[in-house]
């Protein structure tokens, strides 16, 4: 059942170097070894069918056509023991706290630039530096209520941060749908483990969003602003609106009056206090950003400046999740919090520096090169997989516009067995945990799988899948009740 074809140069989540099963996976290994490949294939098809009927899908746009697809679901869950998770949990919260302090700083006093910890031109000349945010006080000084931080493991199993997503990180619905699917397909094996519950985090997020309301009212109105159902992450929006019990609105449903934001409903107008937007900055307000935006709300930024509404995440956070700023995050943590970073960055080379540029260009076949503003795995070069022509083409591009790119040594994503064609074969994975306000991390997060053999690209738009992620408690504590999703102490 389990492929023995393991590559020594990668860390394997399930097996140690001597091909022994790691302790936290023992139960799962026994359980899945005893199931027939045919039964597993059936269960996987069943999962796919359930996802299609439920409409848990995303839309892929390719040239002129669009296609609805499910995110392929891998039935073998990933397990992270509690001790490992505690470090991640603390490190991620620390990181988001520092990034939040950084955003508050650069849009106000800019002390970090004055103290020359980060080069000024890197920040203020950045395309995502939002001039409308300068001097604006955001509710509770909270710029990033919901962040997604991508984490990987190197060949020793050490955790590294690969990327921060501070704008509109997507994928949270899959964390919950994957868990629901696991408990539906494999109730027995789920009950044999004490898995850290994830449902309470949703209520925490709902309360957290409410707490950002500038108006003093017992029941603030929170809405989720979506670009509409043609957006590829629309299911994510639907899921959150439904689960948080908030209204899902489009720009046309909102209007501003007297520097306040209102929602048009069949019962008349209702003032909106918090907008969780899943719309890029540029589309938020045609009066301030792109004038051709039909998706936004005219006058929104003015209401925001007047302090009458909270926008989540704040506009202008993109400057902090830039891949060039990324290399300064450890410095930010020391600067703002006076703490040592608990999680390391993946080493990153900035190409504007001549020495680093030469080093990267001479070692391009060992590097991964990314656009500083890119997302979704487009426009990147994976050195070891590239042909000589591609390498040569990239060398030219890098010499010409070094500021647009960063380079990282080829990352050793860890591997995990995945059920593919009747066999558990090893595939590369990463992890995207979601951090709420720098205060709470949803236990686990989205584990993405590169389903193609040898591939390092886990993005869903490029053939990635996902699996459920379990934070495993080693001793007694609380557990999620399967029936009502409330937390109960375990016996």
């Amino acid at each position, binding site marked *: 059942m389990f492929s023995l074809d393991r590559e020594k140069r990668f860390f394997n989540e399930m097996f140690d170097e001597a091909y022994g099963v790691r302790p936290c996976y023992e139960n799962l290994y026994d359980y899945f070894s005893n199931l027939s490949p045919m039964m597993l294939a059936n269960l996987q098809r069943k999962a796919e069918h359930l996802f*299609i*009927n*439920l*409409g848990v899908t995303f839309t892929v746009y390719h040239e002129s056509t669009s296609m609805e697809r499910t995110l392929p679901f891998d039935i073998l869950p990933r397990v992270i023991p509690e001790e490992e998770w505690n470090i991640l949990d603390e490190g991620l919260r620390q990181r988001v706290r520092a990034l939040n302090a950084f955003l508050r700083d650069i849009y106000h006093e800019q002390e970090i630039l004055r103290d020359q910890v980060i080069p000024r031109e890197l920040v203020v000349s950045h395309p995502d530096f939002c001039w409308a945010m300068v001097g604006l006080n955001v509710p509770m000084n909270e710029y990033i209520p919901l962040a997604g931080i991508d984490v990987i493991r190197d060949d020793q199993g050490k955790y590294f941060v690969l990327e921060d997503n501070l704008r509109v990180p997507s994928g949270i619905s899959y964390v919950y749908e994957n868990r629901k699917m696991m408990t539906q397909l494999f109730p027995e094996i789920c009950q044999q483990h004490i898995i850290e519950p994830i449902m309470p985090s949703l209520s925490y997020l709902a309360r957290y969003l409410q707490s950002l309301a500038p108006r003093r009212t017992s029941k603030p109105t929170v809405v989720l602003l979506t670009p509409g*159902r043609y957006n590829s992450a*629309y299911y994510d*929006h*639907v899921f959150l*609106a*439904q689960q948080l019990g908030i*209204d*899902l*609105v*489009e720009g*046309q*449903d909102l209007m501003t009056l007297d520097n306040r934001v209102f*929602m*048009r*409903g*069949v*019962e*008349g*107008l209702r003032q909106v206090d918090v907008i969780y937007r899943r719309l890029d900055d540029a589309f938020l307000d045609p009066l301030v950003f792109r004038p051709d935006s039909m998706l936004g709300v005219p006058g929104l930024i003015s209401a925001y400046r007047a302090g009458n509404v909270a926008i989540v995440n704040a506009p202008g956070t993109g400057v902090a999740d830039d891949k060039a700023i990324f290399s300064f995050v450890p410095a930010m943590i020391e600067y703002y919090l006076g703490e040592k970073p608990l999680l390391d960055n993946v080493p990153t080379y900035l190409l504007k520096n001549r020495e680093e540029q030469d080093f990267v260009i001479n070692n391009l076949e060992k590097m991964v090169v990314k656009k500083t503003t890119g997302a979704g795995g487009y426009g990147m070069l994976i050195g070891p997989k590239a042909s000589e022509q591609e390498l040569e083409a990239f060398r030219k591009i890098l010499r010409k516009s070094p500021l647009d790119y960063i380079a990282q040594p080829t990352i050793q994503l860890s591997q995990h067995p995945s059920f593919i064609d009747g066999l558990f074969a090893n595939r590369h994975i990463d992890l995207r945990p979601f951090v709420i306000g720098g205060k709470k991390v949803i236990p686990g997060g989205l584990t993405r799988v590169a389903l193609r053999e040898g591939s390092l690209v886990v993005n869903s738009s490029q053939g990635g899948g996902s699996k459920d992620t379990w934070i495993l408690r080693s001793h007694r504590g609380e557990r999620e009740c399967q029936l009502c999703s409330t937390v109960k102490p375990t016996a």
Partner: protein
Amino acid sequence: MLNRQADSLIWLARMIERAENNARMLEVYYAESTEEKEAYWESLIAVTGDVALFRQHYDQIDALSAFDFLSFSDKNPNSIYQCLRQARENALVVRETLPNEIYEVVNAFYLVVRSCAEKLTGKAPLEFLHLVKKRSFLFQGMIEAILPQGKGWSFLQLGRYLERADKTARIIDAANAHPYKEKENLWLRVLLSVSAYEAYQREWCGRMGPREVIDFLIHQPDFPRSLRFSIAQALEAAQKAFKNGLPIAEPIKLLEQLDQYLRFNTIDEIERQGVHFFLQSFLRENNKVGFAVNKILFHSRDSA
């Protein structure tokens, strides 16, 4: 509830009801091979109001072309397949306001109709038509069983009953225009198509003629597909959906008038005016309700 969502709820319910009615009308004559059958297809296409569109795409009217046109055709915006496509589009707009199970029923309904449209051109039509009816029942049952009966629910009801009144009126009209309109079998088939056969028999104990059946389908106050029942339900739903104090909303006024219209016109009065004339003016008034709802939702934005 947003205005846009209210509109989508109306159309979600309407489209599913329309698909179900298409299936009902097709089912009536599919298994029969009697002399009145051929003429029936013509009046059936006439009922849907899409005669010109039909002529553009088919040379002759027969069982096969009528089935294709009303079930799977891409060209007909009111075919079962297109109705389901639109129902699902609308369900997507209101998805987060509905329980997941209801969305799942609509989505699975669309997916199964789509796969039938791809694979089953002309095969096992009766089974397909049964399936459409059953899935529509499932949707309606879910609405009754698990949806809170607030504003959203009343918009769904409004859409469903406006559509049902429209289709029942058209079914009567088509049978009435049929060249063999005196045949008992025709009216028996009409009753079967709206699942009224048993209820009618209990009321009329075996008498079956155009006058009795028309009377039953227009006036029977307790039969869920009669005009009177449908309009009464639509009125109740509109009152719940639009009660915002004074002035009384236009759709409520129109529905009250329609309700009166059905009560005061007895079968004798209807026959005196002519059944066709009566039904046509009913259909016109019924349409006006839809326009009035649309106007409230989209043209008086700030006051609605």
